[in-house]
């Protein structure tokens, strides 16, 4: 699971209103080289929930976006790495409200709910 995907995932357990962002509990992480495309990164940033990314990244990403980030290549490369190159292979995602854990195995988060949770 890449952090870009994590940025979109929410908990949809019945009754939960604050199911985002999911807490990441990783037991195995991998870094994979992905071709850097600055336009991809700069156009993706406005689509993200930035605070959720900062929280997930555990790196020093600024809490607020810097001005003119579109032309700051060093910054874009950092964001690129966090969004696309870091992968959670094993672990789980935890719903912040209900505590329900969704397992991640082989990089695949299993978001299926049980009968009673749907």
């Amino acid at each position, binding site marked *: *699971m*890449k952090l*870009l*995907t994590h940025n*979109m*995932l*929410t*908990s*949809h357990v019945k009754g939960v209103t604050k199911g*985002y962002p999911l807490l990441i509990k990783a037991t195995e992480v991998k870094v*994979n*080289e*992905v*071709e850097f*495309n600055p*336009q*991809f*990164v700069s*156009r*993706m940033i406005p*689509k993200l*929930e930035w605070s959720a990314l900062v929280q997930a990244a555990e790196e020093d990403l600024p809490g607020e976006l810097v001005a003119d980030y579109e032309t700051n290549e060093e910054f874009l490369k950092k964001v690129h790495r966090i969004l*696309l*190159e870091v992968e959670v292979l094993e672990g789980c995602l935890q719903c912040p409200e209900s505590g329900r854990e*969704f397992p991640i195995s*082989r*990089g*695949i*988060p*299993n*978001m*299926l*709910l049980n009968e009673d949770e*749907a």
Partner: protein
Amino acid sequence: GPLIFGAAQMIELLPSSSPSTEIGTTSGDIITVTIGATVPTGFEHTAAEEIKEKIGVDARISKDRGRVFFPITTDKLFQVHLLRSVDNLFVVVEEYHHYQFKESKEETLMELQQLASTLPWTNALEVWKQNGTLKKKKGHRRGGNTAKSKPNCEGVGGSMASTEQQELPQENSAPEGWAGDTQAMETSTQDSDETGHGSKLIKFRVTCNRAGDKHSFSSNEAARDFGGAVQEFFQWKADMTKFDIEVLLNIHNEEVVIGIALTEESLHRRNISHFGPTTLRSTLCYGMLRLCKPQASDIILDPMCGTGAIPLEGAIEFNHSFYVAGDNNDMAVNRTVNNICHIQKRRADKGSMSGLPIDTVQWDLCSLPIRTSSVDIIITDMPFGKRMGSRKKNWDLYPSCLREMARVCRPGSGKAVLLTQDKKCFSKAISRMGGLWRKQHTVWVNVGGLHAGVYLLKRTGSYWRCFNKCK
């Protein structure tokens, strides 16, 4: 069909030939030929677009659906293997647009036999030869078992679209003179491959496709008589399975095209090594992706991805977007990951950056664990009643998933490209959606013999309001 060999007579016939065929002198000279390509029916215009984009020439769409033609010079031949929208390629020997068939079957077949010795074979054979060299350079291998597909080497930078084969030529019982030993058969194939350009006996076969109600003959008869004459003329050996040259005889009403195949197996299975029951061919995936015109940073979801054929083709060919492949089925998500890993390993082995902009999630598509309005494009192959699921299930499923897809899709700018055979159910479900989707364009295609529609939908500007929470 099986070939029975007849004698050939020499008679001149004047073809209404395509002007682009010129007579080359020696091999090594650059000549212009016409290439024919078979494409998924309905996506002829897509293929023409791609040909214009990658080869820079205007393609002609044949009346015979599923076929396009374009000129190319032999120095640019490798470019044809960059095309992602074509299933099979052949070089045209001759084209007749208004072939006047004789009244009787006997006369017609006789004429076909006579044709064989008069056709301008030279250029086409030269192209076939050069194409064979191209394949060899890139380490293309033939043969192998059909149970598990072995990855073929792919050229660097995508210059050779080699096939991920599942449908390999059947290892039939050994031809006369062989003991039926597999090892020996494979060796003999390689021999004829490497030396099949004149020094050893060339093996060939004729494949005839015939369509139209006014013909007095069958495709088998045409293949048989034409093939016999070809064999007489070239002194090649006929072999149905281990052939070096495949001669194509395509007859569609009054249109007759004779060609030589440039692709052995269809290119349509190129990305997939782990198949599922309904894996879509890559050429169809490519056509669907082109339809939605993925932009840089578009987030593209396939909420019922099966083995991941569509998002994987996207991650390779339209790699400035990001793909999330999802399915509720264990096997499906695992196969998707296997297919992705397979491609990544192939890339890593060539020294390229292996990472692809794609992720896989296991989810229920009627209750997507995705933020509202966060997706730009939804692209998927919806379950057909006949191939998977059932018609009755679709009546419930379609409205639920179309609603959920509308929720996650960005209002105003979002799009969906959905393939389905259940057109009635689909149209009804759309019309009851309270104006969340608008049909923009439909492409009629053929999937595994079934007539299906690829619907391009626009997500209207209406914001999502939670109507009935679907289960």
